[in-house]
């Protein structure tokens, strides 16, 4: 399997990196201390490879991006937010199975 091409975002590069992508960006807000984040990370790596070109996966460690967390009202980990043309279009709190994530993505691709 090819290596997953995943963006790592912080407060400093969040907006500019999201704007620079042509494809929709699915941002995973996570932290070291969050158990369910670990399972989700595996699924998102698979999606990054399988859907390369259709969607870009990005990760935000909430400990390193406090302003972004407040701006996007993240209240739960993990939380995924899908950005299309730089705007948030869907917010998915909680870890989800692969089928559910792909279904939500397909609405916006």
């Amino acid at each position, binding site marked *: 399997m090819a290596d997953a091409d995943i963006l790592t975002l912080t407060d400093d590069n969040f907006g500019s990196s999201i704007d620079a992508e042509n494809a929709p960006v699915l941002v995973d807000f996570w932290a070291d201390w969050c*158990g*369910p984040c670990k*399972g989700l990370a595996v699924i998102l790596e698979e999606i990054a490879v399988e859907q390369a070109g259709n969607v870009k996966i990005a990760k935000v460690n909430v400990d390193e991006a406090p302003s972004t967390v407040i701006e996007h009202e993240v*209240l739960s980990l993990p*939380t995924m937010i899908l950005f299309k043309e730089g705007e948030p279009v869907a917010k998915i709190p909680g870890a989800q199975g692969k*089928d559910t994530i792909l279904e939500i993505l397909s609405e916006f691709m």
Partner: protein
Amino acid sequence: MAESPVRDVIIIGSGPAGLTAAIYTARASLEPLVLEGEPSSTSDQPGGQLMLTTDVENYPGFPEGVMGPELMMNFKAQAERFGAEVQTVKASKVDLSERPFKVWVGRDTDGEPTYLAKSIIVSTGAQSLMLGLDREVELIGHGLSTCATCDGFFFRDQEIAVVGGGDSALEEAMFLSRFASKIYLLVRRDELRASQIMQDRAMANDKIEIMWNTSLVEYVGDTKIEKVKIKNNLDESISDLDVTGVFIAIGHKPSTSLFEGQLDMKENGYLKTQPGRTATNIEGVFASGDVQDDYYRQAITAAGSGCQAALEAERWLEEQE
């Protein structure tokens, strides 16, 4: 789809019971397949309930304690080292009416089964109970949580409520006191079910206020929780409680819906096994861990029964040859 090869053992679930069964059956060269479940933010997820905890202080072998998720990652690595195959999928249907047993994963449960197995070890564990109030599902992640370790961080300097009176409720309240300015522990009756050591710790914590004989009856807020309504169970009076977060820890129910009508269950919904054994009413199907344990419910007892299930499955398979 081509006929799937028949596996010796399929293990459904990946908490301490499932992964211990995987370690033992892998070491016995049975090449177990573990269907570990799908990511979720409830206790029903890969790694099981310990994925939602922080320090585990009572698992033997770790004198300084160990982080729950780290412990479970180690269980998994140990099983994989001996050749267990772990898949991040959820079993969606099983047919135990004839051998080989049939297992489906994913949403299509009408077609051919995904896997066939000579024996099955059920270790699907238990999942968090919710209060069953209006809008509960849509508010999860918007101020309502079943995972203090995931979400506590976002309630720094805020006032929050924890619902429940058992060990897990008190553990959550203690953990949340690192972040929140005040924690109301809503306890339905006038006593706690929690162990004495946890009660002593909670009572000694200045940030935790226990509200006895109190039930949460309504979530208030449009897009996220702004306050809740609580009921005094003695005089039935209703009042407002200004909290921005609510953490539910009122216990668990066994995850048995896959096996309804197939495996015998006790009146309380837990799977029934032969006394002192993990064998179920169906030969070749074994149950281990919290899905069949309504009494101990500890990581170490789950691991122990996972080992039992593996040994019983191994012997049963030998007898079939």
